[in-house]
């Protein structure tokens, strides 16, 4: 079937008063996909998830789960399970009882419950803590219980709201890998909310980048990082330099932009920009080079002054002045020496900045 999706949002709007927490969002999440909702705090990620789970009713628009329109279907009749941001474990039940709860509600037999609870606890590697109460466990362990409690029901879709948000960095990294592996093994669609772009990039098949209730761009991590379609996405994912100006020439895939202080740059033309339009050149720090002698006649090549350098191990982060414009350039430290002078230029020195038009984007204002 062409339109066979695990979850679909069709033009979903959620108003609180006259503030749109979710603003005309449409997205189609495929079966067995690891789909992330990524955006800064307050952009409407949780609200989207709660609408899918059925805890909030959209002001307008439709939610489909497994190709069925949900309408007023209450949460307990939807074939999705949620891993809550705060875990929301039942404090008066042991780990085992927490995990068994969903199966009991479905009327699964005792023997079957015991078997599946055992399996689920095995999966999150907590069988030894089955008799504990939630408050007797660490944050990471509680997180796994929440995961097991949801997974044991074998839902069509698992909704996860910043499930690793409360964990420290090291544990978070470990759990990211575990979660990703687990998702691949159990073959369940994950809709994963996070505000951590690195987390979204490493784990997701596709990402929806959200801002102010809108889904600005939906695509693979590669697409989102390499081909952002708007300034917000380019800025939010990774680091980038913005140069503002006006389009002065258009040549098929490419557009040429003259910036405020007269410099001229060429990059990939996005959003069908036309000559005369105000636009922004976006170029990532690692996609530019600093050289002593530029190749004659190459595009996007100008003499600059080095302002400061910072050695950060894997690369050296250089800040340069292009006229009155300040830019970040990251040079990879691909050779190993102990002489500080070997790590490129020193502050105050002249150098040539250069990058290929393919490595820059000309975005709408």
């Amino acid at each position, binding site marked *: 079937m062409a339109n066979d999706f695990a979850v679909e949002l069709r033009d979903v709007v959620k108003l609180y008063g006259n503030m749109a927490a979710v603003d005309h969002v449409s997205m189609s999440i495929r079966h067995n996909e690891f789909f992330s909702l990524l955006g800064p705090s307050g952009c409407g990620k949780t609200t989207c998830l709660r609408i899918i789970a059925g805890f909030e009713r959209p002001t307008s628009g439709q939610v489909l789960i497994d190709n069925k329109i949900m309408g007023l279907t209450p949460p*307990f009749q939807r074939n999705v399970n*949620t891993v809550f941001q705060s875990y*929301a474990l039942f404090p008066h039940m042991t780990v085992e009882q927490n995990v068994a709860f969903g199966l009991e509600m479905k009327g699964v037999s005792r023997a079957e419950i015991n078997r599946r609870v055992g399996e689920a606890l095995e999966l999150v590697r907590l069988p030894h803590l089955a008799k504990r109460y939630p*408050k007797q466990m660490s944050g990471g362990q509680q997180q796994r219980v929440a995961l097991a409690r949801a997974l044991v029901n074998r839902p069509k879709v698992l909704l996860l709201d910043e499930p690793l948000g409360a964990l420290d960095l090291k544990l978070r990294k470990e759990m990211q890998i575990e979660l990703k592996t687990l998702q691949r093994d159990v073959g369940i669609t994950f809709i994963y909310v996070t505000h951590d772009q690195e987390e979204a990039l490493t784990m997701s098949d596709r990402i929806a980048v959200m801002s102010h209730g809108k889904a600005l761009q939906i695509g693979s991590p590669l697409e989102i990082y390499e081909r952002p379609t708007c300034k917000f996405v380019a800025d939010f994912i990774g680091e980038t330099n913005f140069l503002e100006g006006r389009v002065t020439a258009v040549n098929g895939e490419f557009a040429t932009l003259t910036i405020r202080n007269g410099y001229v740059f060429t990059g990939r033309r996005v959003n069908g920009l036309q000559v005369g339009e105000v636009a922004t050149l976006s170029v990532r720090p690692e996609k530019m080079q600093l050289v002593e002698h530029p190749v004659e006649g190459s595009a996007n090549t100008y003499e600059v002054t080095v302002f400061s350098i910072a050695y950060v191990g894997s690369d050296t982060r250089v800040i340069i002045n292009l006229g009155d414009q300040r830019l970040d350039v990251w040079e990879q430290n691909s050779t190993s020496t102990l002489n500080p002078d070997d790590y490129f230029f020193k502050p105050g020195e002249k150098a040539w900045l250069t990058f290929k038009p393919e490595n820059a984007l000309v975005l709408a204002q």
Partner: protein
Amino acid sequence: MLQTIRERRGLQVLGLMLPGGFWLIVFFALPLALIFAISLMSRDELSRPALPLTLANYQQTFDPLYINLFLFSIGLSLLTTLITLIIAFPVALFMARLPRRWRTVMTLLVMIPFWTNFLVRTYALQFLMRANGPINTLLLNLGLIHEPIQMLSTPFAVLVGLVYGELPFMILPLYTSLEKFDWSIVEAAQDLGADALRTLVRVVLPLTAPGILAGSILVFVPSVGSYITVELMGGGKINMIGRVIAQQFGQSGNWPFGSAISLILMVVVTVAALVYFRIGRGERSAL
């Protein structure tokens, strides 16, 4: 130096304990001791407590007449507790889910009846339930009944009076524990397939047990010993243990017997509360 500090500390502790200890002794321990002493006395020809000491008062308490009165009082109080719980729970739930500023308003509304004298309120209730009172008039006019229902002077009237009087004592502790309730847990239950009823039974009730416990004790204890409500709503035809005690100290002038029943009542209530707390502690130890 250290020695003086330590002595000071000791004096301080003593100083801190003094007011509380004083009140406890004057208003609790002494009267209790007095009642206990009187309960062991006999009466002289003027009905005053007198020597010799006797256990007759306690023996009299175990007369079937009084045993039945005890059972009736406990039964009616348990029923009162149950009914207030059933009424108060939805009210407290509703209050706890209101926006914050409305909660304060609702709390005030629940407490406002306290500002009216209890006697006045009970008389008002009595008026409502009279043979020619508004309730009967309404039912008669609606043609639902053909002659006034005798409501006053029945156990039902006492029950209504008790429920009405004790309701706020159930609502407020329930509200307090529901207000602190983490509602994401309820969402988790629904997410896992629990409908409203099962969410209530499996999640909300166990987690609000402390509030239910507090409310139940606050309602049960005064109900068992209630006097004014029984007197006014029961119209002298319904007897409960509190009324018996009042009679012994009043008309009958039998202080030793009144003291004996009071003490037995205290023991019953204390044991009930302890059992209740024990159950509650089991529930709560997990939290």
